[in-house]
C-alpha cells in the first residue's frame, strides 16, 4: 500500500473514532440525566414530586454501552495515530494535527486506565466531550497532509521526548478536569446539599486526593520529558537550554507543578486553594500547546500552520 493509502486509512479511523466518541457522549449524557427519577405521585410521596431520587438501575445499560464506545473509540484512535505514522514513515508527532490526535489518545488512555481502579464514569460526559472538541479542531483547523520530517526532528530523543510530553499532558488534563469538578461541587455544596444528579459523584476529599495523586504520578514523567527535550536540543542545536518560548513554558509548567506539590506536601494546602493551583499549572501546559505552536516564534514552530 502506498503512503497515500495509509494516510486515507488513518483519516477514516479518526472520523470513525469521532463517531464513537459522539455515541459515548450521548450515552453518558443520557445516563447522567435519566438516573435522576422524579417519583410518581402516590400516597407514599404525598403528592410531592419535588424530592427527586437517584436511581441508576435503569441507566446501567447506557453506562455500559457508553464505556464500550469509549474503549472502541480509543482503539480506532490508536489505529488512526499508528497508520498516520506508517503513512509518513516516522513517528506521528511532526505537527499540530498529529500532536492533537495523539494528545486525545493519551487523554482517553489516561481516563480508561484510571477507570480500572476508580469508578470515574461520572467523568464520561466531560471526557468524551473534550476528546471530541480536540479531534474536531484537529481535523477542521489543524489538518495537514502527511509528510516526512525535517532533519532536525529525526531523532530517537524526539520520540522519547514527545511521547513523554504527550502522556504527561493527558494526565495533567485529567487532573485538571477533576480539580475543576472539585471546585464546581464545592461551590454547590456551600449552597446546600448536592443536587440529585451530582450525588453519585465522589466526595470532595476523594476528588481532592485523586487530582493530587495524578499530578504526583506524572510529575516525574514530565521532568523526564523536559530533560529528554534538553538532550535532544543539545544534539540538534548545540545548547540544551536556550529559553526558546516552548522551552520557557515547559519550564513554567514544571515549576508551577513543583509549587503545587510543595503547597500540598509541605505547606499543607488542600481543597479549594490546591485545586486552583492545579488549574493554574495545567493552564500553563495548555497555553504552551496553543499559544507557542500557533502564534509563537522560535525554533519549536514546526507546527505546519
Amino acid at each position, binding site marked *: 500500500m502506498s503512503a497515500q493509502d495509509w494516510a486515507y486509512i488513518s483519516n477514516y479511523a479518526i472520523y470513525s473514532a469521532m463517531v464513537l466518541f459522539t455515541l459515548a457522549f450521548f450515552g453518558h449524557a443520557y445516563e447522567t440525566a435519566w438516573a435522576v427519577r422524579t417519583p410518581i405521585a402516590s400516597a407514599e410521596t404525598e403528592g410531592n414530586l419535588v424530592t427527586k431520587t437517584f436511581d441508576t438501575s435503569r441507566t446501567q445499560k447506557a453506562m455500559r454501552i457508553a464505556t464500550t464506545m469509549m474503549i472502541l473509540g480509543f482503539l480506532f484512535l490508536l489505529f488512526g495515530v499508528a497508520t498516520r505514522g506508517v503513512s509518513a514513515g516516522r513517528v506521528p508527532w511532526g505537527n499540530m494535527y498529529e500532536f492533537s490526535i495523539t494528545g486525545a489518545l493519551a487523554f482517553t488512555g489516561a481516563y480508561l486506565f484510571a477507570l480500572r481502579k476508580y469508578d470515574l464514569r461520572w467523568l464520561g460526559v466531560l471526557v468524551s466531550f473534550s476528546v471530541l472538541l480536540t479531534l474536531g479542531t484537529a481535523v477542521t483547523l489543524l489538518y495537514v497532509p502527511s509528510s516526512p520530517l*525535517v532533519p532536525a526532528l529525526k531523532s530517537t530523543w524526539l520520540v522519547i521526548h514527545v511521547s513523554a510530553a504527550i502522556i504527561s499532558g493527558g494526565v495533567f488534563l485529567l487532573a485538571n478536569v477533576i480539580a475543576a469538578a472539585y471546585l464546581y461541587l464545592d461551590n454547590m455544596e456551600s449552597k446546600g446539599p448536592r443536587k440529585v444528579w451530582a450525588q453519585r459523584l465522589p466526595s470532595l476529599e476523594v476528588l481532592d486526593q485523586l487530582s493530587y495523586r495524578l499530578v504526583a*504520578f506524572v510529575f*516525574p514523567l514530565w521532568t523526564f520529558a523536559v*530533560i529528554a527535550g534538553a538532550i535532544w536540543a*543539545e544534539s540538534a542545536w*548545540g545548547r540544551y537550554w536556550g*529559553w526558546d518560548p516552548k522551552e*520557557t513554558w515547559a519550564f513554567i509548567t514544571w*515549576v508551577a507543578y513543583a509549587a503545587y506539590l510543595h503547597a500540598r506536601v509541605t*505547606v499543607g494546602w488542600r481543597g479549594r486553594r490546591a485545586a486552583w493551583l492545579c488549574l493554574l499549572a495545567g493552564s500553563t501546559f495548555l497555553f504552551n500547546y496553543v499559544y507557542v505552536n500557533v502564534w509563537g516564534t522560535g525554533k519549536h514552530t514546526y507546527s505546519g500552520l
Partner: protein
Amino acid sequence: MSNETQIPEIGAIGLVRYFWRQLTSMRTALVLLLLLALAAIPGSLIPQNAQNPMAVADYFKQHKTLAIWFERFSLFDVYSSPWFSAIYILLFISLIGCVLPRSFEHLQATRALPPKTPKNLARMEHFQAWPANGNEIEIAKAWLKAKRFRVLENEDSISAEKGYLRETGNLFFHISLILILVGVLIGGLFGVRGSAILTQGERFVNNATSYDTISFGQISKESSLPPFTIKIDKFVAKYNTLTSAPEDYTLYVTTVAEPGATPKQQVVKVNSPLTFGSTRVYLQANGYSPIVTVQDKRGNVTFQGPVPFLPQDANLRSIGAIKVPDGDPQLGFVASFVPTYERSSNQGAISVFPELLDPKLLFSIWQGDLGLDSGVPQSVYRIDTSKMKQISLNSLKPGEFLKFSEGTITFENVVPWVNLQIVSDPGKSYSLIGGIVAILGLLASLFTRRRRIWIRVSAGEVQVAGLAKNGAPGLAIEMSEFVAKLKGY
C-alpha cells in the same frame, strides 16, 4: 510589679537568624517557586536579545518609548536580568538552607530505630483490638521483618516503620537541582560558543580568527580552543519533490584532531554533531555560494572565489553581495541567486525548488565608493549603494560571462556552504547527571509511602494501629493483611 511586658532584645544575630528562618521556610519556598514561574513569562512574550537580536531591534523601531522602558527593566534580557537572577539565587539559597540540615537529620535517622509505641493506641488510626492467643508478637515480628520494616521491640509491644527511602529520594532530588545549576554556571564561566560559515572544499582551523562570531565565557580564554581542523569535503541536501521541505542533510568532512594526528573521514548530520573532547561541532544551516571571477578592462583578475549567499525562503532564493574593492573604480554586484529559476509575473525571479535544477545569478552592477573604509560595520550580504552608481543589470547561468563597461564577470559554478556551530560546554555533564538523579530521586520519593505500624499485647488483648505520613494511601489494605496474618487466616 509593672504592667509592662519585657520585649526581648533581638539584636543583630537574632535578626539574621530570623531572616534566615523566614528564607528557609516552606512558605517562602512556595512563594519563590511561584515567583520564578511568573518571572519567566515575559521572556517568552517579548523578543530577547540572546535569542533574536533582530526582533529586538525591530521592536525599538516600532515601539520607541515602550522599548526604552522595557530596556530599563531588562525585559529584553529577562533570563540574565537582576530580578530574575535574584529570584533563583534566593530560591537556591533557601534550598541549600533547607536541604543541608535535613540531610544531616536524615543521615542520623537512617541509623535510628522507630520511636516507642504510643501509650494509647486506641487513639491512633486503623485501630483494632481482639482477644489474644499468645503468640501474636512473634508472628508480627516475623511478618514485619519479612516486609523490611524497621522494628523496635518494647516489653509488650512492637513499633515498626518503613519508607525512609521517601526522604532519601526527596533529598537527592533537591540536591541534584543544585547540581544542575552548578552545571549551568560552569558552562557559563568556562564555555565557548561560536559559528563559522564554510564553503564546500574549505578547511576550518580552530582558532579565534577562523570564526565569524565567537563568544567566550567569563573565565575561558582563546588558548583553551582545542587545535583541530575540519575540511568540508561535501555537503548533500535532499528535499521533498512535492513540498520542498528538507528531508536530509549530510555533511562529509575530514578531521584532524590535533596537528600531526591521522586525518579521519566523518559524517555530520543535524542530530549527530562531531565531538572533540568537550567541544562539539553542529551542522546549523546551509545555503549556496556562487563562485565568480571579476576581471578589469585589461583582463587582470580583481576578484575570485565563492561568495556565501543568504537564503530567503524555503526554495533557497538567496541574496548576496560581491564586493570588488581593489578595482578602480570600486565595483559592487548586488545579487540574488535562485537554484531553480522561474519568472513570476509579480515577484520577478523566484526559485521553485531548493536543489540546483536551473541555477541563475541575477545582479545589478554598481560603481563608486563601497564605503568599506567608513568604519561603519557592513553586512557581507548587502552593499551600501548610497555613494555608487548603477551601470548595468543582468543575469548569468553557470559557465557564462558578461562583459560590461568596466570589465568582465564570469559565473563559474555554485557550491554549497554550511554554517557550523562550535560549542564547548564543560558543565553540561554535571547538569545531565543532576537531571538523571533528580528523576530517580523523585520516583523514589513520590512512590514510597512512609508509615508506622504498632502492635501491643497486654491484659489478654491484642491492639494494633497504624499511621501513614502525608495521608499516603494503601495503609488500610496493609493493616488488614497484617491483622489477617495475626488472626491466622
